[in-house]
């Protein structure tokens, strides 16, 4: 049986992932779990929303990732007066050969890796400019659609403090993000390491693992490999059950009352809207990346569980009771996962 090529592809995926992780860890101190989640989302073809206090390395992570992959990298600092055209690009009158005509000037959106820094400081109108790009990898300006280059990876940051003058992301925008990861303060040892390594004469710098001309293609091949990972039907059922379990029972948007999991009391009390099917897609795709990282070509329950919290926590719309009681979406997802263990045969 000739399985050398696929087997070698799996091994190459593991190698690339490991090298990429090493380069990130060379620059970023600590936050290994966050880095892994970001890489999983990247190879799964999703976008990541990073929530963290200022100064914890959000921008550094994205920039390092772009450098390590040797992909084009752009950064947009979202402000209140940022307009959609500032992101997507606009048509400008250009003179060429003595003739003036409108020419589309591409905005910072046209890059492989995009850092949308403090995305919640832009107006919803500007935030929504990202919707089409993130979901369909294209932008439409003045009736003309422009395709984005693959791979396209958006990494947005949120500042949970300084909420004055910010605009919470609309649910549709949040749903476009594959994962939402929380970046906290480093612990004491990591803090000491950060202070020491960033105050010397030279700053640590990531080395690219791909050549620039082949980087995009290699990344696309690895992403395609992820989608070929096999999933048994009972695991698809498991993922669907988890997503369905995040819906409150009295939700008017949940037509079927037959749910494989009993509705959790906390879900009914604190959740206004549950996860969309994109949450299920994120569960399976993230699980596939986890499987490849373990050298498998099939998804298991544990693979899905490992990505459930970052895949679902930003898709739960909590009500006022949850805010009043200090309920975090993460705890609700963990409750759902605990209940879903019953479905494991």
């Amino acid at each position, binding site marked *: 049986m000739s399985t050398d090529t696929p087997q070698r592809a799996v091994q190459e995926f593991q190698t690339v992932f490991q090298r990429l992780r090493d380069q990130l860890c060379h620059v970023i101190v600590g936050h290994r779990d966050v880095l892994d989640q970001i890489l999983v989302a990247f190879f799964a073809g999703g976008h990541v929303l990073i929530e963290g206090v200022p100064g914890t390395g959000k921008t550094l992570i994205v920039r390092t990732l772009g450098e390590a992959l040797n992909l084009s990298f752009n950064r947009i600092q979202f402000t209140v007066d940022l307009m959609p055209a500032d992101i997507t690009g606009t048509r400008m009158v250009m003179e060429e050969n003595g003739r003036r005509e409108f020419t589309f000037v591409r905005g910072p959106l046209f890059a492989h890796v995009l850092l949308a820094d403090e995305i919640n400081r832009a107006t919803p109108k500007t935030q929504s400019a990202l919707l089409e790009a993130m979901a369909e990898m294209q932008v439409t300006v003045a009736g003309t659609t422009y395709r984005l280059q693959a791979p396209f990876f958006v990494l947005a940051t949120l500042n949970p403090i300084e909420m004055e003058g910010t605009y919470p992301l609309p649910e549709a925008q949040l749903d476009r993000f594959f994962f939402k990861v929380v970046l906290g303060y480093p612990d004491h040892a990591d803090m000491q390491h950060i202070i020491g390594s960033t105050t010397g004469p030279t700053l640590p710098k990531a080395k690219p693992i791909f050549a620039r001309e082949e980087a995009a293609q290699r990344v696309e091949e690895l992403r395609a490999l992820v989608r070929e990972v096999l999933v048994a*039907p009972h695991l698809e059922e498991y993922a669907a059950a988890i997503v369905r379990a995040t819906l409150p029972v009295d939700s008017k948007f949940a037509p079927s009352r037959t749910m494989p999991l009993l509705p959790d009391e906390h879900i009914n009390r604190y959740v206004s809207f549950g996860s969309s099917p994109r949450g299920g897609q994120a569960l399976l795709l993230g699980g596939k990346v986890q499987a490849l990282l373990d050298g498998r070509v*099939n998804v298991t329950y544990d693979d899905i569980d490992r990505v459930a919290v970052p895949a679902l926590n930003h898709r739960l719309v909590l009500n006022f009771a949850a805010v009043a009681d200090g309920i975090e979406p993460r705890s609700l997802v963990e409750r759902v996962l605990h209940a879903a263990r019953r479905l494991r045969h």
Partner: protein
Amino acid sequence: MPAITLGLAEVEERLRALRRRLNSATAQHSIYLGASSASLLVAAVVVVGLRASAPTFRLVACGSALLAMIITAASLGYARRRWLDLQHTAHLVDTRAELTDRLSTVVDLRLRPRPSRLAPVLVAQALALGTQWQAQRIAPRRIPRSIFLLVASLLTLAATALVERRTPPQVPSPTTATVEQLAALGSEAASGTHHSSDAQTQPPGSARDLQPPTALLPPGDFPGRATGSETGRQQSRSLSPSSERAESRPSLTDRLQQTIQYAFQGDAPEQRAQLASRSGISSHHDVKSDPDRNPKANRGDRPDDAAPKQAASSGQRQESKSGTRGTQPQTGSNPPQNLQGSSPAAGEGSNPHGLMDPNASAAVAGQGGAKRFKLAITSFLRPMPEPAGRTAGGGRAGAAESGGSGGALNERQMADDAVRKAEIPPEYEDLVRRVYSRAER
């Protein structure tokens, strides 16, 4: 892709073998559990049938039947739930062999073919991990451990043979029944034509004759639990055809309890043996089924049907129904018994006093007891001519006339220890023989 097809076929073949093994174990487990439960239930029914009263037995028997049905349904449901198809087998093997859902995914590849260049890798991984899902490791036992439960329950069932039947307060002697049957038959003869016609139309060896004595009792009442007087009344009542028709037929549970008692305690053969020791015939079954062992049939000395009718005209019936007691020669270690119910009220002996006295036996015993008693019934039985061969052969009757029992016995009687040791007046023996031959007919 022939390579992956071969790999898939190999994986599926191994899974099918595992599936057969696992399903076989499930079926065996279900059968063993069901059979164990059924054995325990049967054991409980047998014990209750031997030790408990009829209502309790009825309750337990019905409950056991219901429980048996429930257990059967539960066993079938268990087997149905645990019955594995190929996909469930793959999932079970994945879990037990820690294959991280590889086999489930491989089987799904066959059911839902999807283009994936990783499928050969998956099949190769599943085959490479083949040692982890060998049959001996997944299902190490061909025969489940529940067979021990079945063995234990069967032993329990076998142990019920050691359970003794509850000791009756007073067991009426078969001799009593015989004498009372005699009296009842005499009463029948005196009662009219329809009784005699019943006797005539009843074929020899009919179901009533073949029934053991306890089967003649009303349902729910057994000699072992009835008092002596009650037993006498019940037997008298049961032996009367009119009252027997009035009684309802024994229910299924009563018959089952009787069958259990016969099967495990052997009452009927014992009673038949005692009866044979008294009457000189082995048993109703034996007499009927084996003509060679029925000397009366061979000799043709059956009493005439007119004899009971003659007895009816003699006016003895009223005395018989009054419960006349009489003495009876005792054989072996059997103590003297007071006979209740109907009995012929005539006789003679060394001490003729007290023949009609209820306290006769005590009085006679106090006077030293009668060594010999001769019963002569001349009022309602027609004298029967002795068979020539028997008279010429110096049989038991001749010996009795010349000095009682212990005379010359024929070969069959000599073989019967009880008959050989018995001291039965020949007239009484002939009387019993005629009555039995009449009842058999």
